[in-house]
C-alpha cells in the first residue's frame, strides 16, 4: 500500500522542473509584522529528494562568507516563484562536495558548466536548429 494512492501530494504549481546543479532564485512569501512581502533566496540546487510528501529540494548559497542552505518542500505553499537562472553541468545527484569548496572553486566549476552547456542540446528548440545548420 502506498499512501500516495490515498493522499496525493499537492505539488506547488509555481515550482518548475529543476535539477541538481541549477542556479535558481526562489521567491517566498514572508510575513513581516502583519504585512506580506516576497523574500528571495538565490543559490545552487545541491539536493533533490522524492517521497510520499512530494519531496523537497535544497538550495545552497554563500552569504557574507557563510554557507547557507535552505530546503523547500515541493508541496510548500509559501514558495511563490522559482526562476532557473542557469543549468549547471554536474555528474552526480547530490552535490554535497560543494560544501568543501571555496566560493572560488564552486564558481570555477560553474563557469566550466556554462561552456559545456552551449555544446549540449537544450530544451529550447530554435537554438538546436542553429547549431545543426552550422
Amino acid at each position, binding site marked *: *500500500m*502506498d*499512501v*500516495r494512492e*490515498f*493522499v496525493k*501530494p*499537492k505539488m506547488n504549481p509555481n515550482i518548475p522542473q529543476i535539477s541538481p546543479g541549477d542556479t535558481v532564485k526562489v521567491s517566498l512569501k514572508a510575513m513581516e509584522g502583519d504585512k506580506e512581502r516576497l523574500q528571495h533566496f538565490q543559490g545552487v540546487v545541491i539536493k533533490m529528494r522524492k517521497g*510520499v*510528501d512530494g519531496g523537497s529540494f535544497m538550495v545552497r548559497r554563500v552569504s557574507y562568507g557563510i554557507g547557507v542552505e535552505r530546503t523547500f*518542500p515541493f*508541496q*510548500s*505553499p*509559501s514558495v511563490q516563484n522559482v526562476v532557473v537562472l542557469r543549468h549547471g553541468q554536474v555528474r552526480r545527484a547530490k552535490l554535497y562536495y560543494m560544501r568543501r569548496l571555496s566560493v572560488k572553486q564552486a564558481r570555477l566549476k560553474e563557469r566550466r558548466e556554462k561552456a559545456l552547456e552551449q555544446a549540449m542540446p537544450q530544451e529550447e528548440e530554435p537554438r538546436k536548429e542553429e547549431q545543426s545548420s552550422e
Partner: protein
Amino acid sequence: MFPGIIGKKIGMTQLFQESGETVAVTAIQAGPSVVTQVKSRDRDGYDAIQVGFIENKVKQSQLSSPEKGHLRGLENVRYLREFRADDISSVKRGDKVDVGFLKHGDLINVIGFSKGRGFAGVVKRHHFSGGPKTHGQTDRHRAPGSIGATTFPGRVLKGKRMAGHMGNRRVTARNLEVIQADPERNLLLVKGAVPGADGGLLVIEKVR
C-alpha cells in the same frame, strides 16, 4: 453517534495546513464497517456495539460455521471488534459505519499491534547503553552487565529488565487529533504516528 470504527493503517505522509504549518499525518483506511451485533444491558450485562470491517476479499469459505451464522444476512467480515457505547438506541444490526462521526479536531484513541522485534537484546529493548567498545573488551559490547548481587539476595529480582520478546503487543496511542475524515473515501487522517506496520489492523475509538 458511533463510539468507534475499525481501520487499516495505510502509511504516513506530510500535509501543509492553510496556516502554512506542516503536520505529519497517518492515513487510515477507516471502514466501511457494518454493525454485526448490538449488545444491551438487559441481555448481555453491558451496552456495546459489535462492528465488522468490510473488505472485498472475504469468501464464504473463509468463515467458520459459527461466524457464518453470526453474520447471516450481512457482508462477510474477517474482523469483529466491540465498542462500549452509552447509547445503543439509535443503532441496529446491519447499520453501516463510516468515519462520518468524526471531524477535524476530534480526539481519538488508536489501538494496534506494534511491529514485532523478535527476541531483542537489552540495548534495543530497554535502551541499556551496553559495554565499552574498546579497551580490550570482547563480547561485552551489548551485554546487560550485572543482573544482581551475591549470596544476598541469592536470586535475580523480579521484574529485572532482560532480553526477550519485543513488540507485537497491543499498544494504544491516546488523544490523537483528527485532521481530516472523509466518509466517501473511507479515509481518516490522524495527526502523528499510530502503532503497527502499514496494512495493520487498527481500532479507532472516539475519546469521550
